[in-house]
């Protein structure tokens, strides 16, 4: 059953990597020559051939999205750490409840962050025709079901010897 264990760990690490990339990379909203993410707006429109970045607005909704993404990363890392702890300390036949709960929490945080962003992004970004969602935004939405599945797997899993 080592293969199963490895597969579960790979899934968890994949979710973690998705969360990290989604939070850090500057590709939540893209327009022509203009990208915006949770932390800064970068554009190469005003000064051609130069990429200028400035920090995003201090809107409360943007801050809550940032908080949710950071929280999801924290929960996922905690869940990985607790998984390894429980792997060695859980009694035979026991279930990885804590690990699964934290992973599900991470998925919920990512979902709420992405949802808040979707609804409220017009408050700090003037909507125009050529603004569309970038790949970091899509990664956030992909991370949510993966994290949920990973958490559910942990909850129905049982420890053997």
């Amino acid at each position, binding site marked *: 059953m080592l293969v*199963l264990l490895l597969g579960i760990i790979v899934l968890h690490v994949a979710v973690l990597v998705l969360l990290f990339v989604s939070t850090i990379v500057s590709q939540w909203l893209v327009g022509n020559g203009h990208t915006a993410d949770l932390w800064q707006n970068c554009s190469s429109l005003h000064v051609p051939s130069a990429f200028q970045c400035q920090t995003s607005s201090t809107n409360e909704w943007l*801050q809550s999205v940032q*908080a*949710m993404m950071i929280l999801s990363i924290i929960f996922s890392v905690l869940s990985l750490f607790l998984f390894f702890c429980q792997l060695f300390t859980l009694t035979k036949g026991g279930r990885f409840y804590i690990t699964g709960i934290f992973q599900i929490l991470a998925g919920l945080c990512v979902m709420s962050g992405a949802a808040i962003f979707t609804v409220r992004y017009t408050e700090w970004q003037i909507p125009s025709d050529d603004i569309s969602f970038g790949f970091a935004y899509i990664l956030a939405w992909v991370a949510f079901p993966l994290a949920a599945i990973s958490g559910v797997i942990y909850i129905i899993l049982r420890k*053997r010897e």
Partner: protein
Amino acid sequence: MTSLGASWSGSSVLLVLLFSVLVLSPTLAIHVYTHREIHGTVGSHITLSCSFWSSEWISEDISITWHFQPESSRDSITIFHYAKGQPYIDDVGTFKERMEWVGNPYNKDGSIVIHNLQYTDNGTFTCDVKNPPDIVGKSSQVTLYVFEKVPTRYGMVLGSIIGGVLLLVLLVVVIAYLIRYCWLRRQAALQRRLSAMEKGKLQRAGKDSSKRGRQAPVLYAMLDHSRSTKAVSEKKGKGGLGDSRKDKK
């Protein structure tokens, strides 16, 4: 020979003096520190703090001056002056009856408080301290912004959300573990009591009383029921690392 030696020692002393003056003199100045910018709300009060460092002892001739340059003008007017141990507050200008001296020069503090802020108070305040003989130094400026309500600092919402959720989760986890610990302890105590009762009943009578002993305590039935529900859920549960459910019993 002695004249040569004397001239040599004289020039070396001069060199040392020149060196010390050139190297050490930048530190023999007065340094004034204020904030860069401060925010205030209309109608409330604000403290313009000014602290300074002087290489000389604070003398009685120390003078502290506050100038004010309104936002839209290039003129700088003096609004406060402290000299010879006496503060002189503006009582004819825009800060009439609104300013208060809260500093203490001997504590290296030259702060003033402005009450009842108005929008016309937007501008730059300059704090200037002179402590004879230490008079060379830069004065320091602070820009005052007057708002209707103070905008929350960036990161307050972020930090409070993260902190709140983490605390909540920690609390829930701790409570869950406490409940589980208490329940397990209660189970263990019950087991002990039941096994003692069974032993006692076996000693007193025959098999009938042992059967009764198994049914009489209601708590034992609860224990049995919980174990049976666990068995049911195990059968329902899918996959997993093992098929050792039967081994568990």
